[in-house]
């Protein structure tokens, strides 16, 4: 019996203590977060109350003194805490989003078109019999292309325009071997722009689009022009073809969506992808992004 009563009393004391401490921390929190202006209003109220018999002027003075001291001590720390929490939450969602997009990108990039791969292998097989040196050349190009396309094989320093152009040259050399006179290519990239950082695979996607949708379906074939220029620290890369033109009813496609997402992820609104249909026919894709040389890039 005695033990029970003691326990009850102890529980009561503990509850009182907890309530007091939670009240105290609520007060502390309020004090830390309350804007200075509201606090001043509270002080004025306290001073007004002090003129009435409800509160002794000394109590009001004590309240103002203590709350001012606490405000100075706690306010800054509390504010920093809240900001840190908010920032880490935001950073969390951002990393999550970024990781998600990167995973999607990787999945998309892994798609080497099987049709391209099988046709190229068939070509190599045929050239081994008729023209072994040419077969060896195409074979080397194919390896170069796969090395930069398959994500697990992508080497570091892929992120420069020069590197992208180099891998696209391999792809275009293969396509020229297959399409022969139906495909002509010109690449005009000033050497000083080769060190510019450039998101991987974007140029390649535009080139593959031009060939697949513009030039392969065209009976007489055509040409593809790749140009890079710089104006006011904005790097502009263009892929233009004179193929069958643009189908307005076809979806945006995996490729262009991929390019657009990737630019948004890396540069926000500072980069853009524009698709134009020149008056002379065909299709022109233009990427604009801030010029930044990759200082860690290995020279080609």
């Amino acid at each position, binding site marked *: 019996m005695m033990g029970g009563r003691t326990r009850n009393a102890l529980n009561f004391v503990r509850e009182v203590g907890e309530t007091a401490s939670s009240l105290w921390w609520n007060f502390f929190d309020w004090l830390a977060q309350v804007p200075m202006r509201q606090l001043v209003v509270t002080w004025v109220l306290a001073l007004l109350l002090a003129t009435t018999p409800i509160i002794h002027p000394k109590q009001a003075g004590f309240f103002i003194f203590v709350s001012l001291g606490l405000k100075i001590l706690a306010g800054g720390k509390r504010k920093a805490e809240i900001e840190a929490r908010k920032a880490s939450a935001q950073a969390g969602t951002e990393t999550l989003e970024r990781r998600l997009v990167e995973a999607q990108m990787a999945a998309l990039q892994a798609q080497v078109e099987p049709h391209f791969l099988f*046709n190229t*292998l068939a070509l190599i097989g045929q050239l081994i019999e008729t023209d072994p040196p040419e077969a060896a050349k195409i074979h080397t190009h194919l390896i170069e292309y796969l090395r930069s396309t398959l994500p697990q094989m992508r080497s570091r320093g892929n992120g420069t325009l020069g590197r992208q152009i180099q891998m696209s040259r391999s792809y275009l050399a293969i396509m020229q071997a297959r399409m*022969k006179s139906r495909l002509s290519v010109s690449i005009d990239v000033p050497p000083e722009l080769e060190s510019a950082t450039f998101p991987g695979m974007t140029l390649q996607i535009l080139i593959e689009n031009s060939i697949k949708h513009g030039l*392969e379906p065209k*009976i007489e074939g055509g040409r593809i022009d790749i140009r890079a220029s710089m104006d006011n620290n904005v790097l502009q890369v263009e892929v233009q073809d004179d193929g069958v033109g*643009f189908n307005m009813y076809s979806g945006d496609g995996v490729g262009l969506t991929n390019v657009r997402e990737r630019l948004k992820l890396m540069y926000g609104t500072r980069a853009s992808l524009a698709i134009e*249909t020149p008056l002379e026919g065909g299709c022109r894709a233009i990427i604009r992004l801030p010029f930044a040389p990759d200082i860690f890039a290995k020279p080609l």
Partner: protein
Amino acid sequence: MTQPSANAIIADDEEPMRDMLRKRLSEVWPELNIVAEAANGIEAIALAGKHQPDIVFLDIRMPGLSGIEAARMLFNRCHVVFITAYDQYAIEAFEQGALDYLLKPVNAERLKVACTRLQARLGKQPDNIERQLSQLIRQTTGKPEREYLHWIQAQVGNSLRMISTREILFFRADEKYTRVQTLQGEVLIRKTLKELAEELDPNEFWRIHRSTLVRVDAIAEVTRDLRGRQMVRVRNSQEELEVSRGNTHLFQQM
């Protein structure tokens, strides 16, 4: 045993592939005359009309007309053998549908089998493959019943800019023109709102007002103003778009 002689046409847009097939054929069936070679589907039909061959070898992916479309236009006048490096759907269909096909790179053993089959059928009427072909065309092109407009063409400076409908927030009729609002800004096009409403995917854009088409997944919120009208606000834009009385059902509470 000597083999019967026959005439054939090879159609493939890639020259090295034509060379390879011709060489292989000359090894396994020396009596076969390759009377012509075509580089696209249209040429293949023209040459078949001119030479009246017994056999046509058709690559599936060719510019102009695909091999399957070309075969259909030959109206069973000659034996058709398809060639492909990789066409998942077509190969499946071939295996079900008794159509002759070869895989690139063409291997001598497989070619021999195909040639023996062709030789056995030489004097006979070619099979009627119309049904298989039309089925194949439906499968490989895989077109949905209805195609919607996915790109808007707008004059920007000297060239025509293609704007993906994914980038468009809303369209508003603006006297003679239609104003297209994108994340980057706005452009004017001549296409009327009525035409756009008919051509765009109705699940992608909603017509909320006689003069407004709004991208559904760009809608940020719908509010009521003081006069009780529903107003739509779109992400990344300050503009308020009125919902006309007749269209308020679009935003009824679920």
